């Protein structure tokens, strides 16, 4: 008899949970894996959406902890926008599986992989293995750092929002067109600022900048990491110092979540300069939207180039 009572208590608990449903949302609830996707979604969604990012802009997006508090964001989401290309492989699938929201499961209508709209670089052409480090078999996932891709992603998100909220389709399309126009204007300014430095060789810590470098005409000739995701080794560091001296490379780009000890040591031996460049919106307070991210990075970069002339 006692056992039936226990089971009845569990059943009652579950029954109570059944009727504790979420309140009806007026705006589309959009959750994004990174702040960059949130910034682009906000540009086109305006006040018709409520958008929240899971990872912070100063966090390494490869290694985000799948904290239960994120489940609360995901359980009421109408749309989940992911960077894709396995960037969030270590944390997003676990959250999506546990959140209990059928709308945002892979293949459901509320799951959007933004990589489908972007030009992807560094797609491996031969066999891939982990001997190459933490390689991304589908291509480099840091694609949002090319304003052309930003424009394409914004357009893709606008189309998705229009599909989910047809009443406001014109609003989303209009905002996407406005974003494109403002981006084209900003682009002129950025290209002008970077023009004197086109073709300059730089070194970066991780392979975060292929799209940015190609767009602004930089030549990334080496990496502080011997292979993606593998911490720097003394031998590789010595080789890199030699290469930088030979090629007269003076700029070392470092993401805000990496340790500066090795880059600083390389800079001191090569007469170079370490530039902590932001790969994501929100990496610093000033980089609070997609435009300000490029403003911040380009200002920092041009000032560094001037200093190492």
């Amino acid at each position, binding site marked *: 008899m006692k056992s039936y009572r226990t089971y009845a208590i569990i059943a009652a608990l579950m029954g109570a949970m059944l009727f504790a449903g979420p309140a009806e949302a007026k705006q589309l609830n959009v959750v994004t894996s990174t702040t960059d996707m949130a910034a682009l979604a906000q540009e086109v969604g305006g006040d018709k959406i409520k958008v929240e990012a899971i990872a912070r802009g100063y966090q390494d997006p490869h290694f985000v*902890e799948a904290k239960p508090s994120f489940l609360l964001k995901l359980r009421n989401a109408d749309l989940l926008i992911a960077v894709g290309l396995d960037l969030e492989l270590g944390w997003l699938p*676990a959250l999506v599986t546990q959140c*209990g929201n059928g709308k945002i499961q892979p293949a459901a209508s509320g799951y959007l*992989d933004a990589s489908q709209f*972007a030009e992807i670089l560094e797609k491996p052409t031969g066999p*891939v293995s982990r001997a190459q*480090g*933490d390689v991304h078999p589908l291509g480099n996932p840091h694609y949002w750092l090319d304003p052309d891709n930003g424009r*394409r992603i914004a357009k893709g998100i606008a189309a998705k929002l229009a599909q989910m909220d047809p009443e406001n389709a014109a609003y989303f399309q209009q905002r996407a067109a406005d974003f494109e126009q403002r981006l084209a204007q900003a682009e002129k300014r950025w290209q002008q600022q970077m023009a004197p430095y086109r073709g300059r060789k730089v070194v970066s810590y991780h392979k975060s900048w292929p799209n940015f470098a190609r767009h602004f005409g930089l030549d990334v000739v080496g990496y502080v990491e011997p292979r993606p995701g593998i911490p720097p080794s003394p031998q590789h560091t010595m080789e890199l110092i030699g290469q930088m001296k030979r090629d007269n490379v003076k700029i070392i780009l470092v993401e805000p979540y*990496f340790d500066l000890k090795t880059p600083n040591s390389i800079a001191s031996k090569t007469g170079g300069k370490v530039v902590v460049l932001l790969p994501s919106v929100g990496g610093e307070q000033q980089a609070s939207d997609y435009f300000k991210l490029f403003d911040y990075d380009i200002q920092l970069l041009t000032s560094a180039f001037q200093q190492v002339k």
Partner: protein
Amino acid sequence: MILLLCTAFAAAQTAAAPPPAPTAEDRIRELEDRIIALEGQVRMLQQQATTSQPAAQPAAPAPAQPLETVAATQPSDAAAQQPQLGGAPSMAKALNPDIAVIGNFVATAGHNPIVESPSLAVPETEVSFQAVVDPYARADVYLSFGEEGVDLEEGYLTFTALPRNFVAKVGKMREYFGKVNTMHTHVLPWVDRPLITENLLGGEEGLSDAGFSISRGFAGPKGIYLEATGQMYRGDAGDVWSQSGKRDVSALAHFRGYGDITESTNLDIGFSYGRGHNDLGSDFLTQLYGVDATLRWKPLRRAIYHSFLARSEFVWSDRQQFPARQRAFGFFTSADYQLARRWWMGGRFDWSDRARAAALTDKGGSFVLTYWPSEFAQIRGQYRYTNYAEGRNANELLMQVLFAIGAHGAHPF
């Protein structure tokens, strides 16, 4: 008036003028965008095929891409030239689940008069298969290959699209009692499991059984995440619960509260209750009560270099048996600090009565040092001291090498 008319005429002319013709640059950009969009669609379709998504569903990404299946989706010239016999094998490859193997090698030195361990052993090699089954569920199967045979460590279906944010699981699972019981060996920060697992929670493997589970998360006050889970199992789990008849099922309830204290620090507290029949028959119950607490610190800007985790679990066991009911208690408390990107150190204190003889208490302590050559391998050394209730002591040095190949999905936090 003439001026006004002229202005109106000029405005009308401007409004009627056709939009400017697109420049060659605009056309090239548009074509470029279209090619990139098409490439993206192809990529999505390839991913869709590799993750067993039904063809009728809209394109979507794979949660996990095994390197093997990605390679399998690349068309090869040689394959295109060969006759296609039925086409099923290539599709079957594309629909393979994510497969991973986790090897675990353990070497033991020192003397233990109570629990003897082999000097060199491969106690477990885990093979996992994970895939989305259909738009409503995903499957996770973990086989454990030990030196004495193969065992289904876990094999369950998770229903991910239930109404009202419920998540249900059915199959064989590690029971949701405390924290450590739910964790696979390769995610533990130690070579071994705490004494409470051995003494109160079913022995080396812990509580694991066939059954079903249903859980739901709630938003609590001040952003606290609350989660309630109810589980029912066949009633065969280690030496804790045993089924004598079909009605001797075991039941388990878990309540969890999680809160972010700051963006770097969080606290996770759980309460567990389990109830089932023991090996003495249907009239004899064993009830378990548990409290677990975990404090984590991980600075977001330096998350890959430094972190700290402190954990404690307290377990009370109430076992009906002859000649007298046994009420046993045990706990462990541990702390682990990440010193650098590849180095961790930690310690654990154990104290536990034995479930069948609560007057007997074992105590112990461990010091652990772990080195990660990469995300996919780790080398660990552990010094373990145990003071057994019989009055005998054990001093042991354990060494473990873990490695992972393939695509292993992330474990729950």
